[in-house]
């Protein structure tokens, strides 16, 4: 009996250790996470990092300014390949954002406790990635100052509604809903932690600012009850939302007739690709952050391993899609589809496809090994390959399909110009700038949820009370 109990205990601790380091109490979790924001101060490393990111961000602003001055002609797009870096980067960034929602919503619904320590960080990443993504289609409009034409609004032109039967219009609804619901979800999650920061802050400036944004949260049990309900419901709403967003982005392509674009399995294929890219990006960012801020107790190897597993699963779905694309290209018995497959494999951009297969098809297979899944350096390297691979995937889908369509007389070539690259790299600066500010100003791990993971937080259910 005693042995049984001992075994229970060791099993209990064993299952806890991976998610949260040993020896933590309510106070220590609370203090450690809030101290990163309040007490640690602005380190030299942060200033350097932020400075570099900010300079790259400035490059983005410069690139946009020149774009507004000269027009989209400064990009590499032409009459043949009229979607280039703008749409590639849009899809790339928004795909990266999807892991955040997946971690915060789907894993919450699946009672995956390990999500707790990375969900805040991943959600922030979602928001910043969507902010970067949103820039591209707006700039791609050519006259971005008329972007409001895309929304239904009463006006003097007599056309109150946009063209609802175009997937590009669906994008407007999908991306704006996704961005705003993600923001709200993130903010709702932050409210209790902002109250914590308000109460921990020593000087009056942060106290006031955190106080305003915490909305006067005081941890009332009656409030928590409603709060938990809406948090769960938001998770329930975000899950189909995140699927719908990338599905709608896939409709941008699949609703058309172009070989390589028109395939009925595009929606799940794109969703899997987005999750794949997103988890790779979470790992790319979380691994250095946990090392710099000493968060190994909260973002443990177990987290990295689980993320590695999800990357492996989604990676294989994506790889399945690549292979099936080839098969259906042949099986269609349609000469244009068959040419598309041939052109992808051996055409002028063939090297991109092979690089893509290597990055997204071969590299993730290393994740079958537990040793590699628990090795943060390996994971970091593989994640980098995946991020590159997912960018190549969109390049292959968009450019390779567009540059050789039905009529050989309309064939062309495409390559990005300096302004394409400067805008693309610039958005990375924008993303990192926001991320640096987030790490400095807000708790990057949910304090209240981490406290809930401690064994002391569990109150056993009282049966009599339930019956009464």
């Amino acid at each position, binding site marked *: 009996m005693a042995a049984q109990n001992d075994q229970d205990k060791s099993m209990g601790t064993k299952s806890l250790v991976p998610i949260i380091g040993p020896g933590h109490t309510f106070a220590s979790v609370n203090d450690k996470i809030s101290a990163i924001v309040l007490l640690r101060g602005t380190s030299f490393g942060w200033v350097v990092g932020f400075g570099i990111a900010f300079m790259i961000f400035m490059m983005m602003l410069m690139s946009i300014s020149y774009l507004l001055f000269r027009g989209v002609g400064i990009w590499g797009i032409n009459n043949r390949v009229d979607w280039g870096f703008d749409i590639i980067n849009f899809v790339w960034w928004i795909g990266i954002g999807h892991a955040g929602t997946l971690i915060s919503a789907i894993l919450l619904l699946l009672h995956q406790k390990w999500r707790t320590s990375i969900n805040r960080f991943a959600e922030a990443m979602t928001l910043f990635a969507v902010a970067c993504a949103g820039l591209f289609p707006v700039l791609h409009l050519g006259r971005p100052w008329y972007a409001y034409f895309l929304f239904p609004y009463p006006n003097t032109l007599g056309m109150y509604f946009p063209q609802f*039967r175009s997937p590009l219009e669906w994008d407007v609804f999908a991306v704006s809903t996704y961005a705003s619901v993600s923001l709200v979800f993130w903010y709702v999650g932050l409210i209790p932690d902002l109250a914590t920061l308000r109460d*921990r802050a020593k000087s009056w400036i942060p106290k006031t600012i955190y106080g*305003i944004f915490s909305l006067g949260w005081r941890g009332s049990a009656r409030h928590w009850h409603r709060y938990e309900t809406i948090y769960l*419901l938001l998770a329930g709403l975000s899950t189909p939302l995140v699927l719908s967003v990338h599905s709608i982005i896939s409709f941008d392509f699949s609703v058309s007739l172009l070989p390589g674009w028109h395939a009925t399995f595009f929606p799940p294929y794109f969703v899997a690709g987005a999750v794949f890219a997103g988890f790779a990006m979470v790992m790319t960012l979380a691994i250095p952050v946990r090392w710099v801020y000493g968060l190994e107790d909260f973002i443990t190897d177990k987290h990295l391993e689980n993320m590695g597993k999800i990357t492996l699963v989604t990676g294989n779905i994506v790889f399945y899609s690549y292979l099936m694309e080839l098969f259906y290209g042949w099986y269609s018995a349609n000469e244009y589809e068959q040419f598309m497959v041939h052109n992808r494999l051996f055409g002028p951009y063939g090297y991109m496809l092979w690089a893509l297969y290597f990055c997204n098809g071969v590299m993730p297979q290393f994740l079958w090994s537990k040793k590699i899944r628990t090795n943060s350096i390996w994971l970091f390297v593989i994640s980098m390959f995946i991020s590159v691979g997912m960018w190549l995937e969109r390049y292959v889908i968009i450019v390779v399909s567009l540059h050789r369509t039905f009529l050989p007389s309309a064939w062309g070539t495409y390559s990005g110009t300096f302004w394409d690259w400067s805008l693309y790299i610039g958005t990375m600066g924008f993303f990192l700038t926001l991320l640096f500010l987030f790490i400095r100003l807000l708790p990057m791990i949910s304090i209240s949820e981490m406290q809930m993971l401690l064994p002391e937080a569990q109150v056993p259910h009282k049966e009599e009370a339930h019956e009464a």
Partner: protein
Amino acid sequence: MKPKARSLHYGVLAEFDTPQQLVDAARATHDAGFRKYDAYTPFPIEELADAMHDHQNPIAKIVLLAGFTGACIGFGMQTFANLVHYPMNIAGRPNFAWPMFIPVTFECIVAFAAFTGVLSMLALNGLPTPYHPLFNCPNFSQATRNKFFLCIEATDPKFELAETRKFLEQLNPREISDVEN
């Protein structure tokens, strides 16, 4: 001169060390007949809602209703635009091309449901509340760290300052303080 209706006290606040003590205290408070009281914790405790008999929660219903409204508005808007406001032949499809209306309808459902839900949560919780009498208690800031509070409010019909204090003392709190309005 202060208006008479406003009580001098907001309530009596008891501080506990563990979630278990707080849940027991909340249960005892409810059993003693108090109704206007609240518990304050750094993280949600599922059992507490049960102990406080706090089962009413209209948020799920509000969200459902808002989602349904969103569906009607989203689908209705597109139907109106395509059939009445500006009928247009697009690639030979019928004007009522309902498969093409699904994505926007879906986004409207989610947007309506999510925003209505969050706003109703804030409204029902009475947030934002920048000032609250409890914030005057020096130790209350620990409610967002590692302490667990129970406050019996003066508006409760059974509230009697001295009596309530005595009642709370039986529950073995770490500390008791009067909260002034």
